[in-house]
């Protein structure tokens, strides 16, 4: 593991952390256009973060240390995730530290801390949010795992870099199974990142909110970290999607020239996916919480179908 690798790793990590709010801003902008509202500027998320960082912190009387630690832990988890997913290049030192399953575990860690923190103060909303979040996650995880199964079968590995390798190297080959997996993945992504139709990120309407309900007790820098982590999570998910389903352009090991190209490719892909996400959110409507199991069950079915098709057609 040479110095250049470490450098690459650092660059990618910082890049991801820096760009995450931008991606969020881009999605919001697209959505505003699609709903022909006048869009906020791309940098709006940064302004919000800055404002929150400057504000004082207000804590409830019975708030415990857990509430205060949670934001840091959650943020750290997301940073780590961003370091692991091959965004621009595959030979990242940290990518050895976790395959997709470990990645899921990492998200789970963040989620559990968030949910616990939400229960800390003991308001009705906090617990409501945490239990809904945990429920959605519980239902999303099997689907996510099935999504990972198909590429893992094709790439004979659960490590993202190797999967990327198998797809990028060698002749271009069409995998119908991957199409199913991709659709399923998008559905899971919507559920996991609190997007419409599962949750509405831009509402504080009590009875519908999930993710926001957990953040009600946060203020100041804690809230900032939480939001930032949330943005990071969305971006990491997108990056996973890219790595699995359209990995072309990610720099191979040891070709330093590929890195800038990879950067450009990444930006393009992220913009495309963001736009697509915004489109989906515009078309779909928020669903009742007890419709979510059906939604995720659908995702699960698609993923299983993908796997079976792989066995029947491609294997």
């Amino acid at each position, binding site marked *: 593991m040479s110095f250049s690798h470490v450098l690459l790793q650092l660059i990618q990590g910082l890049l991801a952390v820096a760009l995450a709010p931008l991606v969020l801003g881009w999605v919001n902008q697209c959505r505003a256009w699609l709903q022909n509202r006048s869009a906020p500027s791309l940098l709006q998320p940064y302004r919000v973060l800055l404002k929150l960082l400057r*504000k004082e912190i207000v804590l409830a009387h019975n708030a415990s240390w857990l509430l205060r630690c949670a934001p840091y832990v959650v943020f750290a988890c997301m940073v780590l995730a961003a370091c692991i997913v091959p965004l621009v290049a595959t030979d990242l030192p940290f990518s050895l530290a976790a395959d997709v399953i470990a990645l899921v575990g990492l998200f789970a860690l963040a989620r559990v801390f968030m949910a616990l923190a939400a229960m800390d103060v003991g308001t009705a909303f906090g617990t409501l949010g945490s239990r809904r979040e945990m429920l959605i996650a519980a239902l*999303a995880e099997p689907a996510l795992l099935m999504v990972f199964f198909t590429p893992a079968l094709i790439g004979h590995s659960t490590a993202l870099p190797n999967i990327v390798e198998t797809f990028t190297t060698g002749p271009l080959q069409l995998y119908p199974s991957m199409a199913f997996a991709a659709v399923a993945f998008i559905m899971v992504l919507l559920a996991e990142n609190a997007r419409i139709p599962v949750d509405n990120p831009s509402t504080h309407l009590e009875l519908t909110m999930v993710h926001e309900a957990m953040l009600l007790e946060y203020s100041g820098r804690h809230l900032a970290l939480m939001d930032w982590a949330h943005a990071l999570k969305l971006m990491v998910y997108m990056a996973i999607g890219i790595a699995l389903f359209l990995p072309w352009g990610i720099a191979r090991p040891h070709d330093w020239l590929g890195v800038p190209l990879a950067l450009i490719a990444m930006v393009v892909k992220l913009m495309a996916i963001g736009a697509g996400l915004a489109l989906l959110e515009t078309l779909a409507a928020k669903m009742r919480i007890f419709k979510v199991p059906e939604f995720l069950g659908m995702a699960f079915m698609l993923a299983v179908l993908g796997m079976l098709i792989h066995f029947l057609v491609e294997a």
Partner: protein
Amino acid sequence: MFWLALGLFGLAAPVERGRHARLFFSLSAIGGVVLTVVGLAGLGNWPQAMVLGLGLPDLPFHVRVDPLSSFFILLLGVASAAVSVFSAGYFERGGGGDIRLVCLQYHVFLASMVMVLVADDAYLFMVAWESMALASYFLVITDHRVAEIRRAGFIYLVVAHLGAIAILLAFGVLQLGQWTYTFDAMRNAPLSTGWGAVAFLLALIGFGAKAGFLPLHIWLPEAHPAAPSPVSALMSGVMLKTAVYGLLRVSFDLLQVQVWWWGVLALAVGLATAFYGAVFAAVQTDMKRLLAYSSIENIGVILTGVGLALVFHAYAMNLLAAVALAATLYHCLNHALFKTLLFLATGAVMHATRQRSLGKLGGLIGRMPWVAALALIGTLAIAGLPPLNGFVSEWLLFQSFLLSPGLPNSYLNMFIPIGTALLALVVALSGYVMVKFFGVVFLGLPREESLREAHDAGMAERVAMGWLAAWCVVLGLVPVLFLRALDPIFQLMVGATLRDSLDASSWMFVTAVSPEQASYSPIVFLLVIVAVIVLGGLGLRRWFSVQRRRAPAWDCGFGKRNARMQDTAEGYGQPIKQIFQVFLRLDRHHPSPFDPRPRYHSRIEDPIWERLYVPVARLVDRLSALVGVVQHGRIAVYLVYSFLTLLLLLALIL
């Protein structure tokens, strides 16, 4: 060498008559530590056997320590050390029951578990096995004036005894008549596949009754809440594992050949058990019941691993079998650690609050910071979160699942992945359960006034829980070193070694079979997370210096917020109740809109109890009523019986 520890238990047992319970418990704690060391040492070196003077004629007690048993001895040692230290404090502050008796039974319990692990012939094994059941039964009914506790104990012992008879019959199949009761003889016994299957099924039933496989689990949620917390900790943490040990011993060691469908059966039962336990744990409102169901779930996960290993081994894919086995054993140890830890935590909470119902607890993180912090580690570990130990075993298990498509059986190739999804669901649900457990007990506002003067646990308790928590962390951070230590077991059981895959990359990285396949490094996780937290924290303090203010929690302007408004355990489980209604037997009664004092109540019951056990009991009732008619009271009728018997036999013989 392990006689030191065993002797200590054995010696501690009879001398109990004194009232120096504290001394004895700490003695046995030392014994536990010794056992830990012994177990660790025993992992490396090869089997060593010896013969005791006792036993049946021609069948003295054979004793043998091989890597497998020493692994479980290690497990027992770690857990029992903690529990003993804890009990030293717990029972002194009145755990209920006669302390001396409890002390005696407790040590008999420990000693018999050791004997189970080292037994090398069927008779000694059965003796130790049943003494274990008996001792634990007496411990369960320590507080026998309560009717439910007696009922729980009764159910427990009946199930245990039926299981024991099944195991006995399994040994009956394995032995070849003429006193060949030693395990060595059984190993070399030529056994037809059919008989092997019979033996395996009997063993599965017998050990399943003790471990709590579906549908033999019903005693578990009854007995665990009934017992004093340290006892439930031992039962759930260690005793269930002895059943796993027995199953492994029989299916991998004594039975020479495996057939693939055994593994599939075990796999199916395991997944069903795990799922069942997870769902029921999610809807419990009593913290010990919740933990009991979560034990069922974990045992299911372990059995799943055993099943996978069996399938792989049956197809002679020994390396993969080794991976599955590694996951299984690792999860055994993990569960022993964090489940014991959590049960001890509940013990501390019950001592402090005299409450067991989740509906009456809450907000204890302020009152009992130590217990809360240690319990949090246990919670994260059992929820299977990196970088703690629970995640390692789950990761390994998922890896071996992902490797299953290599099997030369296309049905399995397609079905086992779906099983993987079920496992994922279980894992996620266990996360749900644990958030509920910790959140409701320790977070939020205290739901009862009495909780305000709850006191934190004493020194002994803290030490005990700290020891377990430390193991959770260590096993989470350096799994590779530990897996290397386990390697002899794999060589012994499935004739494959994980050495090359473990040595392939540095000690920081776990790999299932090869680094290309997948790798995971908890150390990196921890380091990066800590680094980010520290840097982030410092940076924020450095550039944005803001002051912090305490204020009442935001109540949406409602103004009259109180503790009763926060979600109860019941409410927290409600979505699960809604979604998995088909699996539960719940009678709910909603208040009518005109009810002046509306009350909502719902009760969850185990459908298996209703659908399986009650009918059986009714059947026995009916049969015995039938038989009762025979005892007619009229002497003439009795004479007719013997008359007819005579004639019948005459007819038979002519």
